[in-house]
């Protein structure tokens, strides 16, 4: 019996490894293909698709970055993501504390109401907001977009953070309060430092959410100078057939920061992005 098992085991193992390798190649190879093609001329992309570039045209990255506003888009995205994540994390942590530790009548109902917001798709929000802002004469989309990004991040953030606060012993604040510290002060001085790991999680989660948004940007941004990276590069597809490499370089410019950050912080990113789902 044992011999039969050991005799079969290596084959199963080899099949498993082969499967994993083929699957991984299916993930990595398209990325490499885009990377290699982005460094080629139109002719080469057409005639020798699988060969390495004869001349490695790295200059294309510089061109796309400067000539086509990609620089502006990139910095805009950094701005939107940083500001909205900062606002969201501060107010959500405060609210999470109020919704777990504090004692009030409608606490449970309020919490449930906020979580219900998870089910509402952004498509139901954009028309009223678009009309409302147009009627109010809002021309600057920055405030609208940041508002939307913050609001959509609030339910998950409160959910994750309050789960963490519940696991902290209440004696922490009690001793501070006995020494004459106000509750809000105790929250910022004692609780917030303990929240660091969970704050890191929600920062990653929300930053990627905002960074990768396309829909909200598409609807509320009309000026070139306000565009996000995702919105900006989406138009490259239009003149794709004349200059393949421009689009491919633009794709790589959006992907490369993700790959760099991910290669440093894989574990945090994986647990950060799945935190909401796994805890639900």
């Amino acid at each position, binding site marked *: 019996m044992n011999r039969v098992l050991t005799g079969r085991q290596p084959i199963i193992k080899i099949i498993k490894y082969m499967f994993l390798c083929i699957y991984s190649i299916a993930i990595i190879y398209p990325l490499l293909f885009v990377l290699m093609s982005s460094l080629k001329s139109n002719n080469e992309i057409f005639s020798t698709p699988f060969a390495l570039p004869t001349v490695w045209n790295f200059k294309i990255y510089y061109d796309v970055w400067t000539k086509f506003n990609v620089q502006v888009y990139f910095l805009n995205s950094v701005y939107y993501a940083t500001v909205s994540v900062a606002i969201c994390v501060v107010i*959500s942590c405060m609210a999470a504390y*109020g919704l777990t530790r504090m004692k009030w009548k409608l606490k449970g109902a309020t919490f449930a109401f906020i979580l219900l*917001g998870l089910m*509402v798709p952004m498509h139901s929000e954009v028309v*009223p907001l678009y009309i409302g802002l147009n009627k109010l004469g809002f021309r600057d989309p920055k405030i609208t977009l940041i508002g939307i990004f913050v609001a959509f991040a609030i*339910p998950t953030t409160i959910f994750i953070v309050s789960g963490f606060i519940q696991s902290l012993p209440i004696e922490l604040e009690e001793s501070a309060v*006995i020494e004459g510290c106000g509750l809000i002060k105790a929250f910022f001085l004692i609780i917030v430092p303990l929240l660091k790991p969970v704050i890191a999680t929600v920062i990653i989660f929300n930053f990627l959410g905002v960074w990768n948004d396309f829909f909200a940007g598409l609807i509320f941004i009309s000026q070139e100078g306000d565009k996000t990276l995702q919105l900006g590069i989406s138009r490259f597809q239009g003149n794709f057939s004349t200059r393949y490499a421009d689009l491919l370089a633009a794709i790589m410019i959006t*992907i490369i920061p993700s790959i760099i950050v991910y290669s440093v912080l894989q574990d945090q990113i994986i647990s950060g992005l799945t935190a909401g*789902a796994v805890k639900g």
Partner: protein
Amino acid sequence: MDRMLRDRKTILILVLPAFIIFLIFIPAPAVVSVLLSLVKWDMIGEMKFVGLDNFKFLFATDYVFWIAVKNTLIFVVTSAILQMPMAFLLANILSRGMKGKTFFRNVIFLPVTFSGVAVSLMFYFVYHPEVGLLNRLLALIGINTDLSWLGNEKTALLAVVFTLAWQWIGYHMVIFMAGITNIPVELIEAAKIDGCNEWKLTWNIIFPLLLPVIKISAVLIVTSSLKAFDMVYIMTFGGPNHASEVLASHMYTKTFAQMKFGYGSAIATVLMFLCIGSTVLINRMFTSKDVE
């Protein structure tokens, strides 16, 4: 202490900022959106109350709406079929103490961190009839084709669904892996001692214990497929000839290209109820299974 925890002012300071922003940007517009579905308005002329006329037109006359409904359902079902079994298989393999587990997990999860736009543009290139990777690879194995995968009515929708799966399988794999890790080791050891083979272990022990996690995964796939927009907009724009039109893209075209704000709101309202309905339904389905 107890008095401090009941202090109204403190509670308001803590909860109100988040609650107000949430209220302004999520529940309030959602309600207004439902109300707007009862009017006819292009934002320039008079707003006209038309009752349920938008919905009547939507259900009875708008043939594109029904194409979009059909395509959205195909999108939901094929996404689930493509992503969940594959994610389960990968998670099951990786959770059995393989060497290189972290490496494979990290590679397979990688596309999750990319934006939908970047992935769509990448696959726009992969599916390109002349210079695309897919047709080039097919040529290598002797199938010469200049099929435009995104430009063909028969393949456009599935090409998008496949791209979505390429990006998201890693996400569901990690959720399943977390679920498998939470199963007590003793349970699996005991099953092995009792002579349970790999196959039985997977289906009789791991799979049933994983149902709560599978439920979460199913809700996420169904709701995100219902809302699918970025990939469709960038890769096919709903075409060719509405062959890949989904509810979200139809709503976008009606509202922001044709300026029918009331009508667009009606589509958005249908979409919202589909999202809420399917979440409730999936939760129900799995709870009744738990009881068994």
